[in-house]
């Protein structure tokens, strides 16, 4: 019988549910449980947290997740790969090791570092794609630069005997590709297999998004038992052939429709899904239902990688102030529009310095800016937001909305307001030779 590796997705983002991961660890007959917890900007937020705490900067749910799954993973010989190290993989790995000890377990825990390339970038001063300007143009505003590492160092850590691998910034599919490279000994220029492993990783990385999450549309796309949705399991063979399923009896659904939606999620050109390890080719992938909640995926391919790593640069970019207020009953929309007119006039009258403002009626045109009228709404919520250079100016946006209670249209209620610092992300490319990933086993 052909040997296969079973990979479970234990999280699709930092704040994801924990109980489906426990269900997978206990009942999934897994070889690996993979937690993908770093969105594009999460690492910049973590870098900011680390600035205030040298031992911090890793995923806030790391401890809760590990306490929940470590006993079942140890009992079932399930190895763990996660990017919950965020801005501080070594501290995170040490924490995991300490938690395991408390639980009476003794796993080998390794950290992958080297994704922090801020020093390299400061010297190279590359162009930032979104700004069409060099890194140096941001001056002191830059707080982080992290390269998307590939599968290599994860496979290396597993090869060194790690039961648990904790990374910082790694490409999401690489968290799944790493175990496959390790298990099957795929060469790092076997583009077809690396491409297929990337298809598997891409399909699994968002966890519930392939088992019926982000999918339900009652009456058109019904999903059973969403409150108990199961996370996916990918069973991969040595040639990269893939079958995706979930734990029997868990909620959700997995079929050609859920898999096809996920295959194209956040993909631009399907023939060239650029990863640090490979330019994966999804363009000829086929999806076939192989049984209830069981899907066979074939036809993935790949071509030579670019030799460049994508880097996310985090930088401070001013503040956003916001306020909201509701109007209800006949004429609600007209009163909402009057409130927005007043707010725009107040910006001019009071000289609040805004770089950009946005006013909208939630329930009418807050998502579809050009939405045509569909009859009078029963209620609307006015939302007014502005970008400013300093926190004080941002705070005045919400104050102006709050003042509408007494100084605005009739019947305004339920004001909320807030201010947040903007941590923006821009992308750069660096030659892979300038990045030096490193594996550290912690004790």
């Amino acid at each position, binding site marked *: 019988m052909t040997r296969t590796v079973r990979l479970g997705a234990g999280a699709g983002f930092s704040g994801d549910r924990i109980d489906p991961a426990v269900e997978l660890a206990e009942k999934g007959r897994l070889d690996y449980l993979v937690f993908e917890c770093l969105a594009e900007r999460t690492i910049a937020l973590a870098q900011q947290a680390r600035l205030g705490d040298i031992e911090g900067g890793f995923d806030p749910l790391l401890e809760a997740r590990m306490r929940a799954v470590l006993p079942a993973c140890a009992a079932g010989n399930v190895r763990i790969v996660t990017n919950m190290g965020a801005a501080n993989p070594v501290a995170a790995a040490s924490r995991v090791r300490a938690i395991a000890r408390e639980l009476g377990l003794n796993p080998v825990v390794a950290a992958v570092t080297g994704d922090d390339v801020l020093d390299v970038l400061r010297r190279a001063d590359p162009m930032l794609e979104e700004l069409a300007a060099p890194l140096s143009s941001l001056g002191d505003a830059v707080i982080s630069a992290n390269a998307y590492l590939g599968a290599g160092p994860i496979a290396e850590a597993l090869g060194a005997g790690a039961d648990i691998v904790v990374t910082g910034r790694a490409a999401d599919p690489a968290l799944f590709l790493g175990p496959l490279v390790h298990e099957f000994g795929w060469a790092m220029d076997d583009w077809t297999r690396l491409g297929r492993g990337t298809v598997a990783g891409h399909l699994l990385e968002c966890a519930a998004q392939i088992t019926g999450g982000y999918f339900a549309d009652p009456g*058109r796309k019904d999903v059973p038992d969403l409150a108990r949705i199961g996370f996916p399991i990918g069973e991969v063979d040595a040639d990269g052939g893939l079958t995706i399923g979930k734990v029997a009896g868990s909620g959700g659904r997995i079929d050609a429709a859920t898999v096809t939606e996920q295959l194209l999620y*956040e993909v631009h050109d399907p023939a060239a899904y650029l990863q640090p390890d490979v330019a994966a080719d*999804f363009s000829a992938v086929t999806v076939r239902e192989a049984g209830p909640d069981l899907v066979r995926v074939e036809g993935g391919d790949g071509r030579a990688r670019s030799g460049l790593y994508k880097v996310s640069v985090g930088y401070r970019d001013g503040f956003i102030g916001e306020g909201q207020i509701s109007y209800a009953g006949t004429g609600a929309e007209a009163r909402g529009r009057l409130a927005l007119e007043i707010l725009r006039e107040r910006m001019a009258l009071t000289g609040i310095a805004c770089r950009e403002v*946005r006013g909208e009626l*939630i329930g009418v045109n807050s998502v*579809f800016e050009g939405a045509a009228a569909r009859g009078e709404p029963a209620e609307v919520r006015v939302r007014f937001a502005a970008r400013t250079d300093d926190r004080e100016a941002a705070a005045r946006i919400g104050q102006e909305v709050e003042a509408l209670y007494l100084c605005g249209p009739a019947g305004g209620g339920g004001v909320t307001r807030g201010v947040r610092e903007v*941590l*923006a992300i821009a992308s750069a490319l660096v030659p892979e030779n300038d990045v030096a990933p490193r594996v550290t086993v912690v004790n």
Partner: protein
Amino acid sequence: MRLGEIAHARAGDKGNTSNLSVIAYDKADFARLEREVTAERVRAHFGAMVTGEVTRFALPQLGALNFVLKGALRGGVTRSLAQDAHGKCLSGVLLDMELPE
């Protein structure tokens, strides 16, 4: 007829770019999607919301189209003043596109 009667969709984001998949419920409808749901019509549907280029990729074996809308997210998730800064709701907006009978 509304596009959403014959197809489903999912929105994804990277920086200031949104991608919207459109997938036929029945593969027999794919030819119609390919004919009617062009990059130009998608651009026109969103109007001034999309400031950059719109590109379409076709995956006939999946009955799917993938649209890439540059400049659709008001600066992207970290900088946008929109409430749905990821543009996660845009798939629903696209499915309201009218198709000729």
